[in-house]
């Protein structure tokens, strides 16, 4: 079996501190999951190259090529690591727009680790006041530790590494403890008409 870990990074810079944090979380999760003896694959979905497609999807109602692939990748993930920069006291608009075009139910029960970056630690509660409610609405299973990294944290503050390790361990535990639901395909297994006509039957 291979655990599929998918990382969403909404950083816009190149290089991006958001991506830097995302990569550390992905590496730590990879290590934690491998302790189970299973294989792990890590895929990173960078939102910057999808920005036009995301806007087009908002306007046309359907995802085009690369975005359709990214949405499918997220839907099929065993675990999600979602990392955004803080813009104007919240997740970035691009980050939110990606989840706006995600098919309903895609994250239901899915283990998610949320993380954010900003210039200073004064924004850290964005994780609790914006990120958690978003993923609660999407009915994801968000792990208790959310990881925030201010610019300073990439320097002397050793606490970041500990938070990364703890959150990744929580994510790995959550994945391992979760039964893998067989994906329901309404096109392969439609609800029979008699049931549609009389739902209680």
């Amino acid at each position: 079996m291979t655990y599929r870990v998918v990382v969403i990074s909404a950083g816009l810079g190149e290089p991006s501190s958001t991506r830097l944090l995302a990569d550390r979380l992905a590496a730590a999760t990879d290590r934690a999951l491998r302790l189970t003896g299973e294989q792990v694959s890590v895929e990173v979905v960078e939102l910057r190259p999808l920005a036009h497609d995301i806007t087009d999807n908002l306007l046309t109602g359907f995802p085009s090529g690369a975005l359709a692939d990214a949405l499918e990748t997220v839907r099929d993930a065993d675990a999600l690591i979602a990392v955004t920069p803080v813009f104007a006291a919240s997740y970035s608009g691009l980050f939110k727009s990606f989840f706006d075009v995600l098919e309903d139910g895609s994250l239901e029960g899915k283990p998610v680790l949320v993380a954010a970056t900003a210039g200073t630690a004064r924004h850290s509660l964005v994780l609790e006041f914006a990120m958690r409610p978003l993923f609660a609405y999407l009915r994801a299973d968000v792990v208790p530790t959310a990881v925030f990294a201010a610019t300073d944290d990439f320097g002397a503050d050793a606490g970041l590494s500990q938070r990364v390790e703890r959150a990744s361990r929580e994510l790995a535990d959550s994945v391992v403890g979760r039964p893998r639901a067989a994906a329901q395909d309404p096109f392969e297994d439609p609800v029979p008409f008699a049931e549609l006509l009389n739902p209680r039957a």
Partner: protein
Amino acid sequence: MQIGIFTVGDVTPDPTTGRTPTEHERIKSTVAIARKAEEVGLDVFATGEHHNPPFIASAPTTTLAYIGAQTERIILSTSTTLITTDDPVLIAEDYAKLQHLTDGRVDLMMGRGNTGPVYPWFGKDIRDGIPLAIENYALLHRLWREDVVDWEGRFRTPLQGFTSTPRPLDGVPPFVWHGSIRSPEIAEQAAYYGDGFFANHIFWPASHTQRMVQLYRRRFEHYGHGSADQAIVGLGGQAFMRKNSQDAVNEFRPYFDNAPVYGHGPSLEDFTEQTPLTVGSPQQVIERTLGFREYAGDYQRQLFLMDHAGLPLKTVLEQLDILGEEVVPVLRKEFAALKPAHVPEAPTHASLLAADVVSTGSTTREGSTTREEEAEV
């Protein structure tokens, strides 16, 4: 193969002039477009139904009856009839009356509508969209087939001893298509009844349409109406043509860029690649349309959207001339050559009547026990 046009009846400013037609102009234009469709030899004219601005598509049977009085041959249809928020009793009456007035030139396409507040305006809840479509159509289906109906459901006041009048022309209900862009339940519904399934795939990628059509075909066979490739499929299409394709692109681009549904989004080039929209020469439209059968199979009805996004009436009529003169004759010939003999044409009043005579030996159908009664038990 039936080839026609469908309209949503939008009142949209012409982006090249900034001028918005009045409701009166747009309503009269719709009639002129339908008459032109018959004149250039198209088979079907279908109108949408909306109950809010900027559309003039309310009261569809009024429009269709008026067009019916001025035409002789073209099939009058809908795109779509709001089976969710319309009263199925009124649908039964309105379209049976239209059948009589137009001597059977009527079919319908059921849809759920696309404007949230329409549901509360008509006392319904949008979260019941699918259950409404299922229950209302089950009633409509009976009203056209049983002379006296006793009925009780979740969404409408019960009926005891109700007879919908007039009875369908010759005892043959109008053929029904079920339109859906993304709900597998509607493909299932169409398959259960052996009705047509219409994939308005003009705003969606072909891969998605393919899944919907395949589901419908598979379930059509499951319910015993014939083999999967005999299911009745209709597709949307969208085209803008000029003799030289670059002229078509240049002329259509401002309408595309500002169109209500997809404007200010993807480029014309991206959108034509991702969806069935074809902007170019008549030959390009022919090739693209013939390509639809590669993922939808041999299908029975092709409707084009030709009159939206603020295109002026004069342009739309020119487009219909091109469609009728240069595109449709080739499509008919090519589709006919490709279609295997066991794949049926789209049902018409005449073909349904003939089938009815063969199966019952009479020209009027008595009320009979039908499958949905069994399903209700």
